[in-house]
């Protein structure tokens, strides 16, 4: 059923860029045939205003200074680049370095984007922020930015997720946000986005929609990426400083794809660096219960952009499945669809089982509990490392892979404890520790 999207047909395009063009220059609205604005007319004026504000801001030294200050003194950037020596032994013996986005304030890369967008919202004179969230990570980050900047914050979250993620709902409320349970449609992340869009249409004069990933209508994909490019910029400078050379490969996990596009951009124009995006393979792509949008989806339009999409023969969005709530989305950012088609980035699925094995491995070899999302990138890095070693065993120990460790796994302890059967059957955690649940 797959359209065999990756590589092949348009490889000449990739070669053309590698011979002189730049993939880093990708301002949108289109990335190849992807992206655009498949949105109600009512919201076009707001998107225009956002685009104009963003374009002015990124050329404004004052804005750039504000972002740099927040990144340093609030988020704790630059995040470290840590060599994972014991973990590396399981990845074919190549050297694996971790880009430590898990060490940022709020525990993931999400903070980069929410601070940037909240600053833009203030520039536009908006006093209210709305956001969607799946398990609650982007909701918590949005509530954090809103609290920091003194703005009202409303978060849309599937009703079932609200019940399962009661502690994340409490976190958002502690930060002063209002959480609205979404009961329409399939009551999942995509429906939370739908309800946020409905709110935005009705309240656009005072409200900014703080979308949490590099998807949606232009300028969101290019703008969210811009705020995350710091990940790739830092990682590239750090590996050059620490090792004096570029890595052989860069790995990241992909849901909507914001952490991935952030680190990828640092290396897109380095032809020697292979780039890999790892999607959520769920129970296995052959089961239909997965979130491997690029690997198995077909191009379509959802939430404002043309991109790969998990859909049925009627064009209805189908539900995705993943142990990782952060990857459990049936769409993907349009720039990833383009990078797949031209063969610059390879996208592969990682099953729940593979991700959880990598999760446990990092815990036990490095003393770092990763987010289950990031564990997909770790599992992918193990495969890439083993392939590199198989290609040329003699040089394996010299190869370098950078993995974007996009978040910490404290939020995933209940899920992991359930997965590895670590909970007493009578414990309260056992009651709520089902698939995708977090404490």
């Amino acid at each position, binding site marked *: 059923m797959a359209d065999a999207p990756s590589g092949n047909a348009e490889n000449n395009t990739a070669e053309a860029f590698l011979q002189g063009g730049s993939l880093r220059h990708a301002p949108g609205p289109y990335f190849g045939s992807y992206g655009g604005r498949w949105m109600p*007319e009512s919201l*076009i*004026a707001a998107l225009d205003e956002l685009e104009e504000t963003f374009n002015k801001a990124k050329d404004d030294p004052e804005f750039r200074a504000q972002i740099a200050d927040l990144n340093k003194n609030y988020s704790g950037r630059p995040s470290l680049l840590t060599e994972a020596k014991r973990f590396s032994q399981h990845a074919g013996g190549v050297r694996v370095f971790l880009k430590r986005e898990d060490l940022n304030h709020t525990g993931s890369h999400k903070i980069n984007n929410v601070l940037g967008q909240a600053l833009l919202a203030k520039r536009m004179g908006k006093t209210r922020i709305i956001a969607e969230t799946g398990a609650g990570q982007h909701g918590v980050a949005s509530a954090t930015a809103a609290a920091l900047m003194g703005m009202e914050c409303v978060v849309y979250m599937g009703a079932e997720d609200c019940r399962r993620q009661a502690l994340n709902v409490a976190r958002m409320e502690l930060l002063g946000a209002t959480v609205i349970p979404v009961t*329409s449609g399939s009551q999942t992340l995509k429906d939370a986005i739908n309800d946020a869009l*409905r709110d935005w*249409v009705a309240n656009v004069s005072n409200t900014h929609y703080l979308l949490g990933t590099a998807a949606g209508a232009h300028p969101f994909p290019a703008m969210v990426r811009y705020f995350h490019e710091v990940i790739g910029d830092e990682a590239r400078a750090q590996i050059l400083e620490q090792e004096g050379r570029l890595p052989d490969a860069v790995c990241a996990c992909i849901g909507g794809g914001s952490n991935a596009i952030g680190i990828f951009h640092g290396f897109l124009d380095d032809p020697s660096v292979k780039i890999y995006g790892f999607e959520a393979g769920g129970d296995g792509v052959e089961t239909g219960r997965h979130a491997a949008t690029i690997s198995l989806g077909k191009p379509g339009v959802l939430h404002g952009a043309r991109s790969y999409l998990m859909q049925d023969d009627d064009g*209805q969005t189908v539900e995705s499945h993943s142990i990782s709530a952060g990857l459990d989305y049936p769409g993907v950012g349009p720039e990833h669809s383009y990078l797949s088609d031209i063969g610059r980035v390879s996208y592969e699925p990682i099953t729940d089982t593979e991700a959880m094995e990598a999760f446990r491995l990092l815990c036990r070899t490095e003393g770092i509990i990763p987010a289950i999302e990031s564990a997909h990138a770790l599992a992918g890095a193990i495969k890439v490392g083993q392939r590199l070693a198989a290609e040329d065993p003699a040089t394996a120990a010299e190869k370098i892979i950078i993995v974007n460790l996009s978040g910490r796994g404290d939020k995933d302890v209940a899920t992991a404890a359930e997965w590895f059967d670590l909970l007493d059957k009578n414990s309260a955690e056992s009651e709520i520790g089902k698939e995708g649940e977090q404490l």
Partner: protein
Amino acid sequence: MNHAEMTSKSAAAIDRARAQGRSALIGYLPAGYPNVEDTIAAGIALAENGADLIEIGIPYSDPVMDGQVIQAATTEALANGFHVKQVFDVVAGITSKTDAAVLVMTYWNPVVRMGVDEFSRRLAEAGGAGLITPDLIPDEATEWMAASDKYGLDRVFLVAPSSTAERMQRTVDASRGFVYAVSIMGVTGARTSVSTAAKDVVAAAHDAGAERVCVGLGVSTAGQVREIAEYAEGVIVGTALVAALRDGGVDAVAALTKDLSTGLAPEAGHTTDGA
């Protein structure tokens, strides 16, 4: 193909109403709610009781411009097993029995999935007048512009209170049949009053050269129909009809349509209290 010479079924239906000294009534129903047969019966009831144009919605998994009543109906239609191709059965079922112009209202992805040309061909074959596209703006409509010309279909784009003069002009220029003026910044759903923004949007569309402008979103009573009929060529009612179908079946749709139609002509008498 010369747009001006192309016959528009929607324009013809609006012009027939205009020749009678009144605005046109456009009624919305989702296809397959509660099933295909009842949608056809309700569509025929709309036409027989005063609707000049009928808008058949395709149930979609992610209807971002719809409020709770329509969302609930389309979710039920999908749960009952509705398939996109059945919309052509609905359109053919209504056009074979009535003179009403029948348009399809659809979010864009189901059309993309079937193929824009294939969808257009089948819609024309079913006797459909064209498409109303809530999440397709002219900027992204290259394929649809070509297919609608090829099959002689109307393309009804939306304009909103937030549309700039430039966008208003572009949208009016791209539209055929009529222009859909969104009355308020919001989603579908009955509201107690129609905002004053509607009148301004219609005036702006007229200024941009639109000959036929129809107002939708939030219209549910004959009184609101009367208010809008004073300045717009057509009035669109959706949520109220869906609620009528939900609560009282086809008979309730017929009764509400009859009542709504009393508001169409400026010189008509006062509204009844619901027939």
